[in-house]
């Protein structure tokens, strides 16, 4: 009995493959399997190759599979591109009509099936997809009833006949595969039948915003962030919230500041190009001490870069991108599940530290489906709305005008002083991006400047949040440092590495990127060497650690910047190299595996 299987389907972009995959994943999830569903696609609408991969397992999975058990392809290009992903001896199931050929030297079973002909026989070419689903179910050893049930519920309103037709197609596909290739069908353990959720990170971020009290969203469409606003624009009309599509990212960020100033919880969601455009306004939020939340679904950069490819290369821009010294908080979620509470928490942090809070998501986290445990997203387990220091309206009104100081030296233990909100009598003040005094009025005295700068910068060093999490074996010989999508592969690599090396392995999940929790990481590493695993070319987080005083000798790096996700194997191999002391800096991807490289930090060579 297999604990997990991996299914992949390839074809032409924009031809509806995605809906077939949607069915497959939902059915798998409803059957009680853990699902991780990822894809390859391009920044175009129709045409060109695309492929979808679904890894389903009886245990939680959050990383790409080591290989594919069943690849279904409807065109030759998909075979040429994807056959190499298939486990040796495993199955490629192709449309008969294209009389498919396997590329040189791939050892897989090529099976063909007349999907189109069978569909036509059924009197509806669209039935092809259901034939594919049926055959896939058979070969993977999945229960066909789940698929049929889905069809019944989904297409019930279209009439019994239609549903019956779908059921027939599924059954025919299922039977064809079983009877034509007896014994080739895999046996996977039954799912536990528990009802779980399946969603992409962008939907999770939207839910987190909803739970976090966010009712004002100002954004501009961009891949891979658009779904965040598109999810909320459907929900908000039910609760009086508003998601506005602005003219650009500059307007989006400034609008968030306006809404934050007015007292509502405001969020924008964008990707790298938007982050670059928001740099000036982010400084305004820092200077005026206005809470705002920004989600950055990182993608391949710089500039337009690779809009549909994975990368984690905005850390510098998120933490240090603006001119001048300005306080920001940068969080990184480690899973779709975590994005819900983390996004809700972001609003509490913004309201408590009065500065921009940015969430460093990434393309794979944003767009790829992961299983979410219902317990993890229970409403009553979400962070309670905590508005942070806000002036007492009654007190202010009693004090009379020109008494309340928005930028008062009376601060709480975090160094934050209460803010007043428009509508509160005698709370009037000026929020300006220019240096200012206690009432916010422009003031450039040297003494005041130093106080205000320290006030702003020192506070974020006291951020109270779970900055890191430790997984794996205590007192490890090597500790993998990971965040975002990469966490899944790193966690899975623990067992692999311990098995292959006999060494103890830990993983430090970085949930707070900035201010850099260097001391916390040092403490958690407990003397172990760090292997920082990140998807960028220069080792941005490793650089941040070193800049913050972490001993460079204790930091190794594994980098990948070819647009693809880290595999468990790559991380395990790299850990082996580092443990063997063979190299300190490693890269992988771009057609080759893990290899040593010079220090990726950009420095002038002698």
């Amino acid at each position: 009995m297999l604990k997990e299987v991996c299914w992949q389907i390839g074809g032409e972009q924009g031809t509806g493959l995605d809906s077939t995959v949607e069915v497959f994943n939902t059915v798998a999830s409803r059957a009680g399997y853990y699902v991780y569903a990822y894809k390859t696609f391009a920044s175009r609408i129709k045409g060109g190759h695309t492929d979808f991969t679904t890894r389903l397992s009886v245990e939680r999975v959050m990383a790409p599979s080591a290989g594919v058990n069943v690849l279904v392809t409807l065109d030759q290009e998909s075979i040429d591109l994807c056959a190499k992903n298939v486990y040796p001896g495993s199955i490629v199931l192709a449309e008969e009509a294209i009389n498919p050929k396997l590329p040189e030297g791939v050892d897989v079973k090529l099976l063909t099936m007349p999907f189109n002909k069978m569909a036509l026989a059924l009197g509806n070419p669209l039935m092809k997809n259901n034939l594919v689903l049926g055959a896939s179910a058979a070969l993977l050893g999945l229960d066909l009833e789940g698929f049929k049930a889905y069809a019944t519920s989904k297409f019930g309103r279209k009439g019994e006949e239609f549903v019956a037709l779908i059921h027939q197609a599924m059954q025919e596909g299922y039977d064809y595969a079983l009877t034509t290739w007896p014994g080739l069908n895999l046996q996977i353990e039954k799912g536990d039948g528990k009802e779980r959720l399946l969603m992409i990170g962008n939907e999770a971020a939207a839910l987190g915003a909803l739970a976090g009290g966010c009712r004002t969203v100002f954004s501009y469409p961009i891949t891979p962030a658009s779904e965040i606003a598109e999810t909320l624009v459907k929900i908000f009309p039910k609760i009086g919230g508003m998601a506005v599509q602005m003219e650009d990212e500059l307007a989006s960020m400034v609008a968030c500041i306006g809404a934050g100033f007015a007292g509502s919880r405001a969020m924008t969601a964008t990707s790298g190009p938007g982050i670059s455009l928001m740099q000036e306004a982010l400084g305004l939020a820092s200077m005026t001490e206005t809470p705002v939340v920004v989600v950055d679904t990182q993608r391949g950069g710089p500039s337009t870069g690779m809009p549909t490819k994975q990368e984690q290369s905005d850390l510098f821009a998120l933490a240090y991108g603006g001119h001048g010294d300005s306080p920001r908080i940068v969080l990184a979620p480690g899973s779709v599940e975590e994005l819900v509470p983390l996004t809700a928490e972001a609003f509490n942090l913004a309201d408590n530290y009065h500065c921009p809070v940015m969430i460093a998501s990434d393309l794979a986290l944003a767009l790829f489906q992961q299983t979410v445990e219902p317990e993890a997203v229970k409403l009553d387990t979400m962070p309670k709305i905590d508005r942070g220091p806000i002036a007492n309206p009654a007190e202010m009104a009693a004090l009379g005008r020109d008494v309340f100081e928005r930028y008062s030296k009376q601060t709480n233990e975090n160094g934050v002083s209460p803010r007043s909100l428009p509508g509160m009598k005698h709370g009037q003040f000026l929020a300006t991006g220019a240096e200012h005094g206690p009432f916010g009025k422009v003031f450039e005295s040297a003494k005041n400047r130093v106080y205000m700068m320290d006030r702003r910068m020192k506070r974020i060093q006291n951020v109270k949040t779970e900055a890191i999490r430790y997984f794996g074996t205590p007192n490890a010989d090597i500790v993998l440092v990971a965040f975002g999508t990469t966490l899944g592969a790193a966690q899975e690599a623990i067992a692999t590495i311990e098995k292959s090396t006999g060494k103890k392995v830990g993983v430090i999940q970085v949930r707070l990127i900035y201010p850099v929790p260097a001391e916390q990481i040092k403490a958690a590493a407990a003397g172990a060497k760090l292997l920082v695993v990140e998807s960028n070319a220069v080792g941005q987080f490793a650089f941040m650690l070193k800049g913050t005083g972490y001993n460079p000798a204790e930091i190794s790096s594994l980098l990948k910047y070819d647009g693809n996700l880290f595999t468990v194997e790559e991380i395990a191999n790299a850990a082996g190299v580092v443990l063997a002391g063979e190299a300190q800096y490693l890269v992988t991807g771009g057609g080759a595996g893990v290899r040593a490289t010079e220090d990726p930090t950009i420095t002038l060579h002698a």
Partner: protein
Amino acid sequence: MATMADFRTSEKSWWCPGCGDFGVLAALQKALVDLGTEPENVAVVAGIGCSGKIGNYINSYNLHVVHGRSLPAAQAIKLANRELTVVAAGGDGDGFAIGMGHYMHALRRNVNITYIVMDNQIYGLTKGQTSPTSDTGMSTKSTPAGNIEKSVNQMQLALASGCGFVANGLSSNQKGLVEVIKQAIQYPGFALVNTYSPCVTFNKVNTFDFYKSELIDVANIEGYDRHDRFQAMKVLMEHNELVQGVIFEDKNPASYESLYPGFKEQGIVNQDWNVDPALWEKTLAQYK
């Protein structure tokens, strides 16, 4: 009832003696008083420039944004708390150079705010460079041989963009200016109040005297109908925009807030943000 004093601050002004901005500030304060608004219910968003310093001198909730971006902030404040009176203010460079994109979109979006432009046809705070409204031919620090670009016609642009309220005033004409600002604030949609607010230091051409002699008042135009967008466009084109008064008003305005589905009368900031468990479950159900 708030008085002028309630809307003043103790700040010493940083404007040059005689600057047109004093008049615009005074007119705005007077209009707010006349309308019976209270300082705490007014939000003024100012851009960067001499004009942008207005927030230092008016006792209200003030947001002094980065250069050119007063409008996105002002619209968002209104959407976050529609119970407030929201005014955006700034200069011609702030609004029509770096801020031009936001201006054009605010005109289309029609959020119920008032935008007061303090147009002196020059960059004041940066010491006298050409602005988008500087006359063609004008010699400045940045175009010593004369400006060779066509100047922006901000009011025609407002009309062409479907703006529902377009007015123009002169800083020294307090009575007229107070009146148009009052109407603008009362107008239930995006209202443009352009004002000529002379820079007595850097613009020796477009002076108070210049405007006094050149400006014609719509009130004096035979049979002028302020509800006729097309006629308004014609008059502005013919008089090179040197027209004052309420130039256009849309009879049936529908603000963004009024059109947005499910939007409530109560300001968002005053609502309870805790999610109804039923809604939460219903939303989660979509992912099962």
